[in-house]
């Protein structure tokens, strides 16, 4: 018996799989007859997928309004030119030709779990304080609450009480992140923590596709399929992500949450307007200034290297870098080296390998790898590094968040480059000292002129440590 038939037999299953979504016809995997019955009985309602009014255009699914991300095609079906959205096209093309469908049938009643939490760990005092605030936000139905937690604070555990509270009330919950790595890492942990709750992780290429569980983990793109679906929406890692993606996430979040809902933001580097709202007292928030192991954040050292930019462009490494390599406090620690651009990383791999061999940081050239976003072997290389089969990894900002290794030193080459904004640098620094066994780790930023971002990132870390010392 296939899924379609099953859904046909059960109005409940039909509602579970279609309610709270906004889908293209091709995404609704129902037999044609069934689809038309749902349409004619107004259980499914078509809405225009692109809003085109007085010269301003908007993709209803992803919220894109930028002309750059719209294009046109001559439609062979209606013999007309149609606008289509390029911003969210990997989810199926949104165009003026085909409507989106929203569910208007029976409401779904999600189970009220009397005792859903199967996790038996203990929160640190800093974690419990934040966890209680987030839980309170859910119980009191606050529209939003932000948790400003340092990298390595142990964010997922802090969410458990809030999620538990929501599940007890029979609410539907989503946790969204722009980073697929974050979703992949969180899924098994949540599955462990809530063993009797239906959970799905949705991302490009994930094994789950249906998205009809009470607890949903989703990347930004996957969240776009939802519409007024969630009572509680948790957004992980809200910070200075590339601007257009960031805008999409905020739009998707707003669309996916119910009108009466609670949004919890989790971040180590809140965006400007959130910081403003916090200052104005408009956004309830809580700090977690200490890592789960109770140690302070490693503070980045800033190292001026004259002519760094032109040196790197000529495949030369600054002397300061060599000096640092030879004088590391603990040469056993693995090395994470960040560069601003893929092209630079590829170019520098050879000279860095040579230098690391010279300084004895590695004993064979295979102990160093370069990894970047579009790298086919990205996951394999990260795994090798995690298993300590690699000693050093050169990378772009893709590794700046989400991915953790227990014991590393972190160096940023050209920290003054524009890709290294304040949030990115805080996140990069946050890779060091993650383990209780080795909580310190060195962080060093090489630059040839301090940028605002460098100064602010360092200040943010110092501020957090000040708060942490008071605990």
């Amino acid at each position, binding site marked *: 018996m296939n899924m379609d038939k099953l859904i046909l037999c059960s109005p409940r299953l039909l509602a579970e799989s279609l309610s709270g979504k906004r889908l293209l016809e091709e995404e609704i995997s129902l037999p044609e007859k069934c689809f038309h019955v749902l349409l004619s009985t107004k259980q499914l309602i078509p809405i225009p997928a692109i809003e085109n009014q007085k010269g301003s255009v908007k993709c209803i699914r992803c919220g894109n309004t930028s002309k750059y991300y719209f294009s046109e095609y001559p439609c062979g079906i209606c013999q007309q030119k149609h606008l289509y959205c390029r911003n969210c096209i990997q989810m*199926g093309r949104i165009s003026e030709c085909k409507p989106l469908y929203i569910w208007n049938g029976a409401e779904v009643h999600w189970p009220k779990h009397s005792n859903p939490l199967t996790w038996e760990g203990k929160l640190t005092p800093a974690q419990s304080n934040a966890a209680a605030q987030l839980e309170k936000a859910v119980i009191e139905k606050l529209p939003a609450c932000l948790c400003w937690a340092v990298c390595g604070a142990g964010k997922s555990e802090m969410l458990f009480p809030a999620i538990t509270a929501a599940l007890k009330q029979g609410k539907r919950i989503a946790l969204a992140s722009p980073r697929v790595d974050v979703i992949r890492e969180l899924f098994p942990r949540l599955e462990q923590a809530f063993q009797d709750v239906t959970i799905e992780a949705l991302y490009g290429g994930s094994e789950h596709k249906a998205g009809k569980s009470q607890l949903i983990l989703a990347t930004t793109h996957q969240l776009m399929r939802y519409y007024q679906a969630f009572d509680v929406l948790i957004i992980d890692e809200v910070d200075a992500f590339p601007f257009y993606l960031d805008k999409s996430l905020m739009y998707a979040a707003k669309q996916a949450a119910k009108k009466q809902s609670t949004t919890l933001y989790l971040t180590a580097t809140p965006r400007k307007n959130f910081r403003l709202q916090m200052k104005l007292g408009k956004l309830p928030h809580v700090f977690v200034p200490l890592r789960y192991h109770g140690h302070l954040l490693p503070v980045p050292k800033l190292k001026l290297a004259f002519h760094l930019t032109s040196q790197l462009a000529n495949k030369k490494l600054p002397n300061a870098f060599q000096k640092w390599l030879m004088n590391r406090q603990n040469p056993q620690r693995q090395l994470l080296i960040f560069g601003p651009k893929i092209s630079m990383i590829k170019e520098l791999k050879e000279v860095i390998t040579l230098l690391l061999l010279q300084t004895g940081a590695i004993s064979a050239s295979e102990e160093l790898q370069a990894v970047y976003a579009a790298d086919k072997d990205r996951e394999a290389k990260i795994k090798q590094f995690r298993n300590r089969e690699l000693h050093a990894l050169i990378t772009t900002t893709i590794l700046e968040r989400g991915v953790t290794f227990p014991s590393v030193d972190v160096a940023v080459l050209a920290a003054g480059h524009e890709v290294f904004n304040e949030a990115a640098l805080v996140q990069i620094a946050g890779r060091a000292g993650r383990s209780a066994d080795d909580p310190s780790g060195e962080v060093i930023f090489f630059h040839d002129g301090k940028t605002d971002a460098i100064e602010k990132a360092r200040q943010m870390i110092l501020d957090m440590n000040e708060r942490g010392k008071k605990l």
Partner: protein
Amino acid sequence: MNFCVYCHERIEQPLTWSTWLTVKKNNVLCISCTGKLEMISGKRCKVCSRAWSSSICLDCQQWRELGDNIERNYSIFHYNETICEMITQWKFRGDYLLREMFRNELKSAFEKQFANNAASLTVIPIPLSESRMQERGFNQSLALAEMLDAPIKQVLRRKSGEKQAKKNRKARLKRDNPFSITEPLKQAALIVDDIYTTGTTVRQAAQQLKFHGCPEVYSLTIARS
């Protein structure tokens, strides 16, 4: 500022003397994406464009023995992972704009390779099946054809079959042709399409065209797999 239509990276054009001379006017791909495309260069089969050390490849020799009906196929790129992904994004995801990735090369291949008879060629797109049209909304072959400075005639039609699977099996047995002709074409034809794989599609189209009086059939394709 210019962005790559494919990867959205900023297009940086380092203006050194050597690149300055070769920079194309409307670059739509960044250097990195351009670099991943492999042009077919060097020796190739003069019939089908496959990289081949002697003049005609084994496949095409076989076609010749059976009585080949196309004069020549010219392909621009090797079919590699990148072009496969690009074509998928364009055709199957329906990102129509991405045909721009091929505009320059397609035009210059047309002008250079068909210089002798460019003026007399009529461009013929391969028609799309009804169901594909419903999915995609555009015909990629027509989209390519429209980028050439030549008259287009949509004289081929795909025979409608209610049951594709059944029909295909029968078709294979009977060597039935999926195309029919809406109007005979008396000039030389240039079929334009995205990928040349086995060459069967082009030859099926050519068979119909020639049967109705078309004197010569050429083909121009983006990639040779």
